[in-house]
């Protein structure tokens, strides 16, 4: 099974975040970047799947800050190939743009499965996997918590609220958005990462020039502001219900048909 795992770099959240001058994003210049933790989960699940079913794992990263370390680390963990798509991406990439770049490259590749983190901490619309599947015109499963080989394809587990689990059989090409791997991402020793840096060069090629409008723009980014204090509703069920209805009307949350 040929598996491709796109790896994204995100802001290291242990750092103190500052807003940029126009207040539409975080100041990226002084920040440290690490691999998106959901992509790490996707990589782990991909490696487990390869170990169970054979095949290969290719990691692909877009040229974001410190992406090399993430790709070498993936190689050290057991990925077979690492590809870096170069370009000027210092100011961040939207999900639409990311998916379009990846889709352009994936069009040149042979693969069975794309496994990608279901989200990232700085995703505005959290839809990289969904958009990617749409661009590639493949099946798509999101919020996966386990992927295992099944009759030539894979079986994907999805988790819903209340402990409900859903199992889906997938055949043919697919994009899977991974929420959590079956096992915690493995530790890779620094010696192995360093060995990977020496022995396995990254394949680099320019990222496709894409025009992928996001449809949304950030007008203002700000720290959570405390709003007015909570109002505790007292009394019996009827009284509380009546008060809730009153509040909903007051705030104009529902439109009443006249």
């Amino acid at each position, binding site marked *: 099974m040929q598996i491709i795992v796109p790896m994204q770099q995100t802001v290291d959240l242990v750092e103190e975040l500052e807003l940029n001058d126009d207040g539409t994003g975080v100041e990226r210049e002084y920040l440290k970047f690490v691999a998106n933790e959901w992509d790490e989960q996707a990589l782990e699940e991909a490696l487990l799947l390869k170990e169970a079913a054979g095949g290969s794992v290719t990691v692909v990263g877009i040229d974001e800050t410190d992406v090399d370390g993430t790709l070498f680390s993936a190689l050290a963990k057991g990925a077979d190939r690492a590809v870096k798509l170069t370009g000027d991406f210092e100011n961040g990439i939207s999900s639409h743009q990311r998916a379009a770049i990846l889709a352009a490259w994936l069009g040149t590749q042979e693969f069975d499965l794309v496994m990608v983190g279901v989200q990232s901490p700085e995703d505005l619309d959290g839809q990289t996997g969904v958009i990617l599947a749409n661009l590639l015109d493949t099946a798509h499963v999101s919020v996966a918590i386990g992927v295992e080989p099944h009759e030539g394809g894979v079986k994907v587990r999805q988790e819903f609220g209340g402990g409900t689990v859903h199992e889906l059989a997938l055949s043919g090409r697919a994009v899977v958005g991974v929420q959590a791997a079956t096992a915690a991402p493995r*530790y890779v*020793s620094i010696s192995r990462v360093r060995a990977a840096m020496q022995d396995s060069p990254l394949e680099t090629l320019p990222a496709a020039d894409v025009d992928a409008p996001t449809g949304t723009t950030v007008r203002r980014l700000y720290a959570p502001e405390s709003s007015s204090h909570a109002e505790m509703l007292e009394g019996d069920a009827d009284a509380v219900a009546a008060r809730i209805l009153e509040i909903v009307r007051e705030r104009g949350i529902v439109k009443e048909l006249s």
Partner: protein
Amino acid sequence: MSPIAFSIALVLALGSFSSILGRRALKLFSAAPAARFDHLGERLKITAIYAFGQKKFLRGEQPAGLMHAFIFWGFMTLGLTVVTLFGRAFDADFYIPLLHPGQPLGDAYTLLRDVIQVTVVIAVTYALYRRLIQHTPRLFGFQPAEKRLHDEPHWEGILILFLILGIMGGSLIHEGARLVLFAGEHRTETERGWEPVSNLVSHLIPGSAAHTMTYVGFWMHNLIVLTFLNLLPLSKHFHIITAIPNVFFGSLRPRGQLSKPDPGKPDDFTWKQVLDMYSCTECGRCSAVCPATASGSPLAPRQLILDLRDDFLGRTERTDDKIVSDEVLWSCTTCMACVEACPVGIEHVPTIIQGRRKLVDQGAMEPMLQDTLQNFAQQGNSYGKSSRMRARWAKGLDFKIPDARKEHVKYLWFVGDFASFDERSQEASRRIAKILHHAGVSFGMLYEAERNAGNDVRRIGEEGLFELLVEQNMEAFAGAEFDAIFTTDPHSLNTLKNEYSEFGEMKPVYHYTELLVELIESGEIALSEPVGSKVTYHDPCYLARYNRITDAPRRLLGAVGAELLEMPRNGTNTFCCGAGGGRIWMDDSKLVERPSEQRVKEAAALGDLDYFVVTCPKDLAMYSDAAATVGVDFQVLEVSALVEQAMGLRDDGAVLAGDAA
């Protein structure tokens, strides 16, 4: 006396002995290389002190230590008796040249032999008493880690002791009978004067039996010696052959300096490690001092060496490829008490770390430890906090600690993770900064450029990460101007002092207690208000055992006027708090009783005590918790609190306990 019969016995015995020994030697020679042929003079010196001088036996637990020393010295002398009695097979009147009766050396030897034989008999009888009647716990295995040892019969040790008694008895009978047989001859009468014990034995032998008894003694002595010889390599008494070389080839590196893994065969045992396995006498001095064993973890250093030995010799059937379980390897606090205690120079800790390196390479570790290693790799500290937060503790000071990257300072303070990020230790860090600032000492820090020194990372077995941290710190050192380093953290001190120099040039490294005591003794810090507190002092392993810094903290306590009550285990014989070697980032909930709690109880047994004084940030955390868990009347106090008090610097007006307020 029976030259032909004895020759046959001798040839058979030596043939069998060389064949067994040869097989052992082949296994040893096919092991991985170890560079242990350097500094021969120094090696001869340690051999003289620790092997022939029996230093660890004389310093250690008594009277077992003295008992061993006498048996050892007895064996040294009695080698000559063995030669003499073997010679008598071919010449009934054989004496080693220069050792004839009447010759000065001969008479001295006769007396020595006679006295030593009795001494050995007494010592061996005591050894039998320990095994058969007293049931000394050390000889029966510590539970639960040494269950296997406990299940096995102890007949081997008992048999050997009886054989030694037989050898002594044979020689005494032979000599006694000769005194009867050759009575009246000038040579015999000279000998009689120098061998009072053999003379006593001679009174028990009737003249008619004297001739036979010389033979009985001769055969008894010689046959037991030959049997004994063949049992040696098959039993733990192999140490009689291997222990002296094992001491000779012992590590001459500083205690706190680990070797880099062999890039080719990192998992293979070196011949010195094989010699370690051959030399273990199962005495259990290592397990008796091990904090892991004492707290009910699955590790006992003796059991570890025996498991490795039995597997190496093919004595055990492997159920899987793990000779020693992961839990055993992760249980070690790397406190070095086992290595310090081992009389035959076995190096348990480096062998454990070698095993851990393999586990780290496989990623086989508990989640908390894995997260911690990832924190080290990404943020350079165990807390996973931004390096920009490292010096935040200093914000509460009313002066700014100079940045050694921007201006020249005399001392660079290597603060370490715990003293930077742990809240209790931050308070101590601020206090130390205040004291030094008040004394006008020129000191600075690296601020966010400091990384964890990597001491514990290396001992977890993550060598690559250790090297990465060393590179980052070395780069920071290169970008700063200073004359010397001091650190508040004994773990950092150890690696900075002993290991960094293998990666580049290093300035001298001091512990802050050394710096403080020097400032006080030179008058740069004036103490105006001596404290009268009753304190005990816990020696951190990495300060006392690893780096022999035991005097400075005690001089400091003396200088501030504290009354020091020593715990039974102090100085280089200190007992680990349980935090070292990465244990602080592993689960300790399965331990029966944490080492720190045992230690706090040891202090509590001293009676009336105000403070349990520590000089290590990890100790402050470990013992504050342990004191709360155990519930004791004293407080855990970092030493600079006493200095601050004695300097009259406490701004809150509070007075420490034990002071006349």
